[in-house]
């Protein structure tokens, strides 16, 4: 879990841009590329975006859940970043880190 949220933080720092939907898609694509070493297909991007938006909605409604997620582990997180964004990205990161493709080195 901690790895996921730190990865999310890294995404936020690396992929700059305004808080627009396009920027979100860029962040997700970057997340995908860094874990799988390939570009996502349009279908895959759709999957990531829909889950991300659902997760974001939840964290906006329940910010305490986002707080909880971001305090797992020993490392802190950058307080300048949006907690809800971070948490939602962390969820996607977690999902990606657990796919067969990412875990298995062939």
């Amino acid at each position, binding site marked *: 879990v901690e790895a996921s949220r730190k990865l999310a933080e890294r995404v936020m720092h690396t992929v700059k841009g305004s808080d627009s939907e396009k920027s979100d898609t860029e962040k997700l694509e970057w997340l995908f590329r860094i874990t799988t070493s390939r570009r996502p297909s349009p279908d895959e991007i*759709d999957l990531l975006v829909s889950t991300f938006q*659902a997760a974001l909605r939840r964290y906006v409604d329940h910010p305490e859940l986002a707080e909880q997620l971001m305090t797992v582990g020993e490392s802190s997180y950058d307080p300048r970043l949006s907690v809800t964004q971070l948490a939602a990205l962390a969820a996607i990161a977690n*999902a990606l880190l657990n796919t067969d493709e990412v875990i298995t080195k062939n």
Partner: protein
Amino acid sequence: MTDNARHLMMTRRHLLGKSATGIGSLGLASVLNESLFSNTTGSFPGRAKRVIYLFQSGAPSQFELLDHKPELQKLHGQELGADFFEGQRQTGMTAGQKKQICRSIYSFKKHGQSGVELSEMLPHLSTVADELCVVRSMQTQAINHDPAITFFQTGFQQAGRPSMGAWVSYGLGSDNKDLPAYVVMISEGSGKRDSQALYGRLWGNGFLPSAHQGVKFRGKGDPVLYLSNPTGINSQQRREILDLSQALNEKHYQEVGDPETLARIKQAELAYRMQTSVPGLMDHSDEPERTFELYGEASKTPGTFAANCLLARKLAEKGVRFIQLYHRGWDQHGDMPRDLPLQCGDVDQPSAALIKDLKQRGMLDETLIIWGGEFGRTVYAQGGLDMSRYGRDHHPRCFSIWMAGGGIKPGTTYGTTDDFSFNVTENPVHVYDLHATMLHCLGVDHEQLTYKFQGRHYRLTDVHGQVVPGLLA
């Protein structure tokens, strides 16, 4: 795989292809339809729906438990010469010593209406003698523990092949999607502190898809580690993350077709379900006190053989296909009089309780129970003939096990050995034959349950084994 299975694989691909986007848990539900995964050869209806294998690791002595040899009382102390052994391979441990016949210090009696003969060390089991089929003519080729137990588990002395539980899972699938088809539990024997190690590969899947491996439930604490959600992620979040992960996995599978991806998909789903199903197993609060009286006080302590037997019953009720218990500590090379009673104290009451419990619930007929070790012990004593400390060495040519339920003929003794319990004189049952018979009880033809690997069709019994009609009810 058989052509049948290959065809099923094609069907799955089509299924996944049609629902490419937004699969979610609904799609997964149909993908995980058990009938698509099992490779039911189901040639005929079997009596048994499941197996509970009570494996006694270390090799319990047949002389002290199941094979009565009254002649030894007279022959005690006589030395056995080289001609007796006819060049048989012996263990390094006793190759150099003088070999003197050693009688057993325990008496045997016939029990129940059937007159099945058991030693005084098994008083509880004696009360269910009429349910037992004692096989005295078991045979194996392996002389040391690791190859012998590997042989028992996989049908081959060298590691790498699927275990019998994996074959059964592959052949019959699971009755319960919330639990693994093959569960393993291990208990320590009171009799021998430094007993043989047991390896994960003994309940492994070999070359069968990973989904068929045995899942070991830990004796103490959480039965399965890391099952509960970590801090920061609740069930809803977990489900959401899992859905995304699985959807990506399935896409990947569509493109690459690696069966291991499919296994991972299935295992992750199973793990998710086990988050709720497993903690419930350990909760014995709705179990009446008389259950614990039946299995013995030890059944209240997690990790004991007794506790595992009770869990085995619960798992059986929940549809787990192959439940295997390992009880360690039977390797009495010495100090049999001190250690054997401790071992029997561990297993006698719970084994009998399991039989009684299942019978009460009307489940004995459909549950095949097998109790036994990996080989037998020698008629000669290891070390000296000090009757307060004697022990026996390994002996593969004949040994005893018992079976109950699941289509096995009750209240009988099958097979005989000579006066020295050295060779089988009638009705030998090789390990391959036991496997064939076990599969037969489950309704599977051992010659049909195959898997193509490295160019040829493998099966649990390889190219051997015959069903033993004399063991069947």
